[in-house]
């Protein structure tokens, strides 16, 4: 077994599958698959699954994708890190609720994305800025009450875009301490999202009843016909 961190890539785009090993040399790619089903059939050992959300195309119209793909990868015992162009925050939050360890945007610079994948391999929850704002909203609406004062300060700073270096100067704490607070915080939020029903979250966020049902794992009904390709994030 290699000492270097390992990952597999699940993406329907051949270019992505083949370019990641060359562009991200900090870890080894031990497998690449166009669909989740192929990954689960082969079950290679890897520290992380780098997972695209949009996997249906004309060559694999029945591929599992979206939140369902996340749930399937997690159920197979992998750490899943979503690597997608998706930006809708409730879809991204649904991925965390489905057990994703991280979410990395395909618009991130390569170095930054590689660093985030390494963080996810190390067990950290990696969340984009849109989700950080959502986390702050949940905390401020008292949905998540386990936070200490320092964690609240770190969350408020991150929600405003501050880096650890900037937070370190204003809170007089080391960056490693702040990262520790952030780790606890994100784990707590991840647990909350996985354990809370969509209707509770709808109430907390002031959304209308059923607004989250289309996104949330375990709540959607099987889409039928054309809507499946249109609403591609649905469970399938």
């Amino acid at each position, binding site marked *: 077994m290699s000492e270097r961190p390992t990952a597999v890539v699940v993406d329907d785009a051949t270019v992505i599958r083949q370019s990641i090993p060359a562009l991200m040399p900090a870890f080894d790619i031990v497998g690449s698959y166009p669909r989740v089903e192929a990954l689960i059939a082969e079950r290679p050992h890897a520290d992380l699954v780098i997972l695209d959300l949009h996997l249906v195309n004309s060559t694999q119209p029945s591929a599992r994708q979206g939140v369902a793909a996340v749930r399937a990868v997690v159920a197979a015992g992998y750490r899943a890190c979503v690597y997608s162009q998706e930006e809708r925050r409730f879809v991204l939050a649904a991925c965390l609720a489905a057990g994703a360890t991280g979410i990395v945007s395909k618009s991130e610079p390569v170095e930054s994305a590689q660093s985030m994948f390494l963080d996810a391999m190390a067990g950290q929850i990696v969340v984009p800025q849109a989700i950080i704002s959502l986390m702050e*909203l949940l905390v401020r609406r008292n949905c998540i009450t386990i936070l200490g004062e320092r964690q609240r300060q770190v969350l408020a700073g991150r929600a405003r875009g*501050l*880096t650890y270096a900037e937070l370190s100067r204003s809170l007089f704490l080391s960056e490693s301490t702040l990262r520790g607070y952030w780790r606890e915080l994100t784990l707590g939020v991840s647990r909350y999202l996985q354990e809370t029903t969509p209707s509770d979250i709808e109430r907390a966020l002031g959304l209308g009843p059923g607004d989250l049902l289309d996104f949330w794992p375990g709540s959607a009904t099987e889409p039928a016909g054309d809507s499946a390709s249109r609403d591609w994030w649905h469970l399938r």
Partner: protein
Amino acid sequence: MSRRPDLREETADAVPGPRTWSWVRGGGPPTTVAGAESAIVVLVIGARIGTLVQALPSLPGGVSSSPAPAWYVACWAAAAAASITVSVTSYRRGHALSDRAQAVDIALAVVIVLLGPWTVAVEDRIGSWEGFQPGYALSVVLSMIAMRHGGVWLAGLSAIVAAEVFYLASASETASASTIVGNLFTVIVLGVVGRGSVQYLRRVADDADEARAQASELARLREEQRAQVAIHNGAAVMHLLGDPSLDDVTRDRLLEQAQYEATRMRAYLRGVPRSHLDPDEDTSGPRPLADVVSRKCREFDDLVIEVALDLGQGVRVEPAVAEAVENALTSLLLNVRMHSGARLVVVHLDAGDDFPPTGWVLTVHDDGHGFDPAGVELGVGLREVVRGELGRHGVDVRIESTAAGGTTVTMAGAVAGFPGIDVEGTR
């Protein structure tokens, strides 16, 4: 830094001359340093010529009773010539004579007073205008109050008092001691009080001119700031539009912004708020701040902006504040576009946990290369459009940045309204 204009140099009344008549018609000299000096000149002329006019009817009697008529006439003529010279010269100059010229005037007065015992009959020396010397000395003391140098003034006053003591002593047989002392006190008290009043008048006039100069400078600065606020963003947009490598989408966005900024500039030139020239602008009441921020951020879709407004939803601000925030955001995002090299901008609105909310905080953070605030003078955008203009609308602004560490601008203001709840006047 440009030299501040000194109103004293520009005052039209620096030389009173014939304008004195316009004072009479207009209610007195202007309340400037030049006006105060002119008022002092009027006082000097009044004292000198007035004394002369009072003494004139007694001239024939004085000559006839004088033990040395020729000397009496000579002294009287010298006094008259001095008074007329001082008056005319002061009037023409617009302010009192120089200390040196006044010293000569004082010396002449001392001589005239000292010659009094030889030129005036003893019974006329006190209490009559035949003995004009004490009255003349008093008029010189009153014209001395305009002297600049305190030491010279004191020496002159002392000399005149000493001469008058000599003169009055020569008449001790015909006047009581109390009359003699009273005459002396009159000279001393009027001299001291008069000088004190003139000094005070000059100080007030100095302060008034200084206040006018400051007001004028403040008005100039304010106008300069308004021009900078009106023009800065437009200039930045035009600069960006001149970039030949712009893609079509960004160019279209910039053209929209240019149109907005052109309206702002026209409004400035016409001296009306921008909303007066924009038919789409609703100025009927407080505006939702989240909408203002969201709309402005959408104009910069070439930037990666993460907009987090959930915590400030519902907050309304006065239209003027909304416009100032809009302009500040434009300036900040133009800065990001032009200078920062940022990959991500986070715009975050928070109205706190109170219900109803009383204040709001808008944070704009970019992860660009930043700057050292201590080592860099803020540009017009940050200084005037962001800090200055928002500050004038009661919004506190904090700018934090480090070289290579990103920039955070935090704006905090008062809520003017919240759906269903009247929080007007609270903060």
